């Protein structure tokens, strides 16, 4: 597989790491709120500044995700507010039962940070891929699920969550630096969808890393004479259905793009929100094919959720409609 160059409109700003951006935010939050407690299973990178500040506020579980979540649940029952980090593939799968029974069923205020959701670990291979994290977490009772689009969006989500101690939450974080998006992606409330670019012909809804891809697709579509609106959706559960309906408006087509298996994800939630009378919905999402050894960007192309795939999906739909007309 060929290596894809970084899309042109992102070249001016170097990619940024969510973990680096979150470290000072988490340290400040722990410092300001004595009820917060940081925990990690191989998740120390997020809490380097907490450790520098006061090592007693960080609990290391070692490489033991099930125990990490059980301990977090015990701490929450003791009146603390745990923020627990681990690598996403092991957090959401190995500790799945602890997340459901110990945290979600009693509705405890535990914030779970999954590092390297989706295909963020790229060439490390399928052991480290977590295209199923959104699906698994969306099946958890009462779980709020967030998939930020870039480092600033991750900061916005985590700040919002730490200010609101109600119930469990999962945040998918990237493993490597991401493209930096237009400021509008990150500055407004992450609980609703955010329109990053307007256009009347099609609405592209994207989440996480795919928001950057959607913006690339919109650039390409403009050259094709298609005006594409692009909105980022950071909050997947509870799904902002009303806002999505308003955003879709009168546009004839909505394309969703997510680095995620379909169930519980952006595509099905959008289709459900828009209903049978709404615009056509094309859901681009990943599947269960065994991946090639490839960089993150190339895996997005392999699974058909990169900018070129979004652009092709829009053009194919329009060509079909033109032929039918």
């Amino acid at each position, binding site marked *: 597989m060929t290596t894809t160059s970084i899309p042109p409109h992102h070249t001016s700003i170097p990619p940024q790491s969510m973990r680096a951006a979150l470290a000072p935010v988490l340290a400040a939050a722990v410092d300001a709120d004595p009820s917060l407690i940081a925990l990690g299973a191989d998740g120390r990178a997020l809490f380097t500044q907490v450790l520098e500040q006061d090592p007693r506020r960080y609990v290391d579980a070692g490489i033991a995700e099930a125990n990490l979540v059980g301990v977090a649940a015990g701490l929450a029952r*003791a009146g603390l507010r745990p923020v627990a980090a681990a690598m996403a593939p092991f957090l959401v799968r190995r500790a799945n039962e602890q997340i459901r029974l110990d945290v979600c069923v009693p509705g405890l205020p535990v914030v779970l940070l999954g590092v390297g959701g989706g295909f963020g670990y790229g060439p490390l291979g399928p052991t480290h891929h977590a295209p199923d994290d959104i699906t698994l977490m969306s099946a958890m009772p009462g779980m709020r699920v967030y998939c930020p689009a870039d480092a600033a969006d991750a900061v916005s989500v985590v700040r919002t969550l730490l200010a609101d101690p109600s119930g469990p939450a999962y945040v998918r974080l990237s493993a490597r630096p991401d493209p930096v998006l237009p400021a509008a992606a990150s500055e407004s409330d992450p609980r609703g969808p955010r329109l990053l670019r307007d256009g009347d012909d099609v609405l592209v809804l994207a989440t996480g890393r795919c928001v950057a891809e959607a913006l690339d697709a919109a650039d390409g579509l403009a050259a094709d004479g298609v005006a594409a609106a692009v909105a980022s959706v950071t909050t997947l559960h509870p799904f902002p259905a009303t806002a999505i309906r308003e955003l879709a408006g009168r546009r004839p087509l909505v394309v969703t793009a997510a680095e995620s298996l379909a169930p519980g994800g952006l595509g099905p939630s959008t289709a459900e929100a828009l209903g049978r009378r709404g615009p056509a919905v094309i859901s681009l999402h990943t599947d269960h094919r065994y991946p090639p050894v490839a960089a993150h960007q190339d895996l997005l192309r392999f699974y058909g959720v990169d900018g070129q795939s979004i652009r092709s999906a829009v053009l194919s739909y329009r060509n079909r409609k033109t032929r039918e007309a």
Partner: protein
Amino acid sequence: MSNVDELARRARLRVVELAARKAIHLGPALSLIDVLVALYTSILRRDPARPDWPDRDLLVLSKGHGVYGLYAVLAELGVLTQDLNELPGHPSDGIPGIEAATGALGHGLSLASGLALGARLAGKDRRVYVITGDGELDEGSNWEAAQFAAHHRLGNLVAVVDRNRLQQEGDTEEVCALEPLADKWRAFGWRVGESDGHDITAVADAVTALEAGDGPAVLIAHTTKGRGVPFAEGDPAWHMGELDAAQRRIAVAALTATA
């Protein structure tokens, strides 16, 4: 018969009456009743009038399938007043005296470690007790928690293993051997005590002795599954079961004869 033995006997009668109404985890409930009585009458700092007293000691029943034993003891202590038959087959939130929903095996020791660490971080002089089954120790998450609790020197955490040597599928040593169990705990950094799990005074003394040291401690309480009901004792078939009228009469007679 001492007061505590009488309390345990009455709790067993409650379990038998429940098992005469529906299938319950009979054997595991009966094996842990004496341990529960020892903890509730001699060890746990609690306020009988206020089960939710915020400074109380905490007990997590990791082997949640033994919950009818816990319900029966809590009923004898006056903490639970509702019809036990209406309560769920595993500990759930919202029931007086129940500290945490449990029953999926291998969760309790992690939860209890978090509770113990939380008490320490809050500066509370609170102790946390967790009862695990022995078969339950097959679950690897227990050993993650054991390593964690020792590393963090959780001196306010005490585990009791209900060592009845039977899991649903048979003898623990034939299913997937646990022995040398005490050595395993020691190797993980825990202080270990052993006692007859049906001698209420011995259990209380052993736990008290363990609490004198530093770091987490575990009591291996040697018990008999189905204890007190002759035909159920040591028979894995009574891991779960319902008593018919004749079996109920035999069970009640056996428990009444010991009065």
